[in-house]
Structures are given as C-alpha cells and as structure tokens.
C-alpha cells in the first residue's frame, strides 16, 4: 500500500497541465471548433513562461496565457473568420509553434537557465488526510486552479445564457444564428479561451514541474488533451476524471520503475495510449457537438 500515496500524488501532478488544456478545449469543442493547434499553444506557453518566469511566477503565467492566445488568434482568423479547415490550420499551428519556439530557444544560446518552480501549497488540515491528503491538498497552486476550472466551466456551460448560446453554436449553428447569436463571435471567443488555457498549461509544465524549457517538451500533451475531451464525453466532470485516469496511467511508469518490476519501460509508456484507444472504442457513439470540426455551417 505504501506505493499508493506517491502514485496518487504523481497522478494529480501529471494530470494538472492535461486538465487545464482539456478544460479549455472542452469549451472550444462545445462551440464546434476542434483545436489541433492546442499542442502549439502549450509549447508556446511553456517557452513564454520560461522566458519570463525568472522575473516572477505570476509574470510567467501571464506570458504563457498571452503566448497561447497568440496561437489562438491565428486559429480564430483562419478557421473562424476565413472558415478554413480546422484540422489543417491546427496542424500547421502546432508545427509553427514547435518550429518557432525551437528556433528561439536555440538562438537564445540554449543556456541552462532554470526558473524557480512553484512550491507546494499545503492546505492546512486537508493535506493531513491519509492516502489522498498529499495527492490533492499539497500541490502547487496551479493544480487548485486546474481543479477549480472544472466547476467553473460546468457552471458557465450549463447555467449561464452565454453558455447556452455557446452550446447552441456547436450543436445547431443555423438555429443559433436565427435566434440572434453571433456564431463567429462566439466561436472566436471559445477558441481564444481554449488556447489561452493551452498556454497556461504550458506555463504549468515549466513553472510547476520542469523548472526549465526543452524543445518539444509539450511531448504530445495537446493531443492527449484532445483525446481526454473525447474520453470525458465533452463534459467538465468527465474531462476531470479522464485527466486523472490519464495522469495515473502516465504516473504508473514511475511506479513500475521504482518497484523494479520486470516490465520494459517502453512498454509501460504505451499504457496511456492503448488505454485511450480502448476506452474510446468502448464508450462508442455518443455526444460530440453536432457540428464539431465543420468549417462551413450555412448549408
């Protein structure tokens, strides 16, 4: 049993950037826009946080959000305003962000600059709970932000007028337009929200975990977040659970190593992806926003 608490702690820590990115992506996808450029938002946010994070942690996070928004603006212009294919534009944006951050990083001399990582904020009392206390209540502040996003996004989507309009845009854009909703404006806002959070996720990666930048350090987390949104059935609570499951699956590799099990490390690394494929197949047809990914909605 002694392995359970560290596993949970590692699971929550690993899940944090995934959850932040996936919460944002949930909003974008509910408005009918899939952001394949999320990976690009994350790496851009990570680089910005790395470049500015030495000043203050808050400045690092602000820069991360701004960088994510920078990528998001391009997606909004090409895919919402100009109605170009979301997947092509998103793929290009991921490549663009990986290329630009890699170039900047290497041109900057690739110094061994390290930024201070956020210390854990122990919540008094709660962090003493056996087994789960350390995992959920002694984490860096950004983790609490991540889990706070879950009810906030749920509240917005289900309990506000704007949230209703946003869901209408994703499910029935023509009806939404007839009801006076400005479809493109809603989609652009949703994209910007999602990409801003993508940037923040990258910031969390640098400022709460790695403490430094490495080329391509997003390592597919943007794509994982997109899978997590589908696994979570486009609902905030589902997305939170899926993030934790994913975090646990990824944390398992550390445990496998620590326990010295005779399982090849590379095989342990496959677990989250195999799990995702299996789960997506098992969940079957469901509840994706009706016009997700559609570029032209007039017909």
């Amino acid at each position, binding site marked *: 049993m002694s392995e359970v608490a560290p596993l949970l702690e590692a699971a929550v820590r690993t899940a944090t950037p995934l959850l932040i990115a996936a919460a944002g992506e949930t909003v974008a996808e509910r408005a009918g826009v899939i952001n394949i450029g999320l990976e690009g938002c994350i790496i851009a946010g990570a680089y910005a946080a790395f470049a500015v994070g030495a000043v203050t942690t808050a400045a690092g996070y602000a820069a991360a959000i701004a960088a994510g928004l920078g990528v998001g603006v391009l997606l909004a212009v090409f895919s919402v305003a100009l109605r170009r294919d979301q997947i092509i534009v998103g793929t290009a*944006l991921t*490549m663009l962000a990986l290329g630009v951050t890699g170039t900047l990083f290497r041109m900057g001399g690739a110094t061994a600059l390290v930024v201070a990582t956020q210390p854990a904020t122990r919540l008094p009392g709660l962090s003493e709970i056996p087994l789960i206390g350390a995992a959920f209540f002694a984490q860096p502040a950004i983790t609490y932000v991540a889990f706070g996003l879950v009810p906030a996004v749920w509240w917005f989507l289900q309990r506000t007028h704007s949230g209703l309009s946003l869901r209408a845009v994703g499910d029935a854009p023509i009806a939404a337009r007839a009801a006076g909703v400005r479809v493109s404006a809603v989609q652009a806002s949703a994209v910007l929200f999602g990409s801003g959070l993508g940037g923040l996720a990258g910031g969390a990666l640098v400022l709460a975990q790695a403490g430094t930048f490495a080329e391509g350090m997003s390592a597919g987390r943007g794509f994982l977040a997109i*899978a997590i949104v589908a696994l979570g059935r486009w609902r905030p609570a589902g997305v939170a659970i899926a993030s934790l499951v994913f975090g646990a699956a990824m944390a398992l590799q550390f445990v496998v190593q620590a326990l010295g099990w005779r399982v090849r490390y590379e095989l342990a690394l496959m677990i989250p992806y195999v799990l995702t494929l299996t789960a997506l197949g098992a969940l079957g*047809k469901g509840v994706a926003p009706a016009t997700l990914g559609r570029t032209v909605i007039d017909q």
Partner: protein
Amino acid sequence: MIESFALADLGQVLDAFWRGSLGTSSAFFSGTLVRAIPLALVGIGLSIAFRAGVFNIGGEGQLLLGATAATFVGLYASALGPIAVVAALVAAGIAGAAWATVAAYLRDRFGVFEVVSTIMLNFIAVNLVSYLVRGPLQEPTRVYPQTEIIPFGARLPHLWPGTRLHAGAIIAIVAAVASWWFLSRTAAGFRIRAAGASPTVSRTTGRVRVDRVTFGAFVASGALAGLAGGIEVSGVTYALYENLSPGYGFSAIAVAILARLRPLAVLLAALLFATLETGALGMQRDAGVPSVVALALEAAIILAVVGVSGGFRDAPWRTWRASGATVAR
C-alpha cells in the same frame, strides 16, 4: 547570438542553405532527392485518404510500422536472396496498412474520430520501436539501441554509383502516376472522390458504399506510409533505430496540402519540402541557424496556401464523423 545575424550574415546563411540543398550534386542527389522519397510516398497516400474525407494523421506511426516490418523480414528472411527486398517492402506495406486498419476499424465500427486514434497510434508506434531496438531486436553486442544491419539482398540498389539515390525514387514516381490514374481515371477513384465530396449524395445514389470506400482509402494510405518506412530502411538506414523518421509523417501532411491533394503535384511539393529541410540542415551546419526553423517555414507555407487558395473550406473535408458523433446514414 541574435545580434550576430546582421544583414552581412544573410548571404552566408543563404549560401549555406543553397549548398545544403541544391547547390552541389551530392547535396541534391544524396540529400534532397533521397529525403523527398518518403515525403512523396506518405503524401500520396494522405492525398487519397484526405480526398475520401479521412483525416489520417497517423502517417508517422504507419511509416514506423512499415520500417519495423521491413527490418524484420530483411534480418530473418535473408534466405530469399535477392528477392528479400521485395518481400521486405511488401511486408512494410502490409504492416502500415494493418496499423491504419486499427484506426479505420475504430472509426467505422465505434465512431472513434480518426484524428485522435491515429495520434494515439503514433505514440504507440514510437514506443514500440523504442522497445524493439532496446529489447528483442537489438543488435547482438547490445551496445547501441538499433537492430543489426540488414543483408545486401534486402537492400534497394542505388541508381547512380557514388550517390545515395536509391531505387525508391522510381517506386515513388510509379506510385504517384498510378495514384493519379486511379483517382482521376477509374470508377473506384471516382467513388473515393465522391464519398469525400459528399457522402450524403454518394449514399443517396445507391452506387457508392461510402463506409467501405472510406475504409479502403484509409487502409491504402496506411499501406503507402508503411511502404515509405520500408523503403527508408532498405534504401537508406539499413537498420531500425529510434528517430529513424525526422517527422516524415507530419511533414507529408503539409506536402499533401501544398499539392492540393493531387498525386503528381505531391512529387513537386515533396521535392520543395525536402529542399527546405536539407537546406535548413545546411544552415545549421555551416551558419549556426537552428534547422528546426524549417518546421516553422513549412507551417507558414501551409497557412499561406490554405489562406490564399480559397480551397480547404468545404468538401472534401467537412464530412468526417467526430468521435462518437452519429451521422445519418
């Protein structure tokens, strides 16, 4: 560092790009042309898939599976002698097709969005290769994370003595011409285009079995990506190792888009992107400019093409099923 890139250095940078990509015959025949081959093959496959409305972004994983299969056959079927290379390439195509079939089946049977499933399959393929070259397929001395070198019988011949240009170039050209002919001149090709352009209309005519057609296009694109991986092993690397592909599967998406999904144009687009990439490597070698800048340039080219062309906004893209989304049949 950044100040040092003044205008005076620009000439040096461009010169490095030129010498790295097209400027010398060895750069062109042994570098750029060789690099264009996998880009072209994967790009041709993706053109077929995209035309059918299938967004296969698993070219990288399918290529790696093909490379693995070719290595395996090359190492263990050397008794075949000179036809070992044929067996290796056939195995590569089958392996790539099989990897794509996983995603095609998940899409067809369970409505799993192929963008998500193919990305997951890419990750699995990368880890699978890591495992194999450090585990069961590692070379006998167990020092390097790679397989043994495949025997001569499993290698593609070089076209010109003294260059690294291999017979894979001919395969790529044949594949492009055949795919062009198939897509534009055959009934099956027409069904693929129709299924992608409008599955609803295609279904209503009663003459196109849309699910079967898109499944076939998906698998075919996987086969071509797998073939590209096999050709890379039997023509260039002669062994399997990690990072065998510098992202061919992803760059090929850009190649297919730039070619606007026309197989013959894919050849030119692949050549252009290969030039960019080998030129960028030259800039890194001789002028200290990071080669990863090529990735940003490729992305800018896609955005420019997509933004200016006015295409890529409706058919044949708009019809894929989102993960779990139901589509009226």
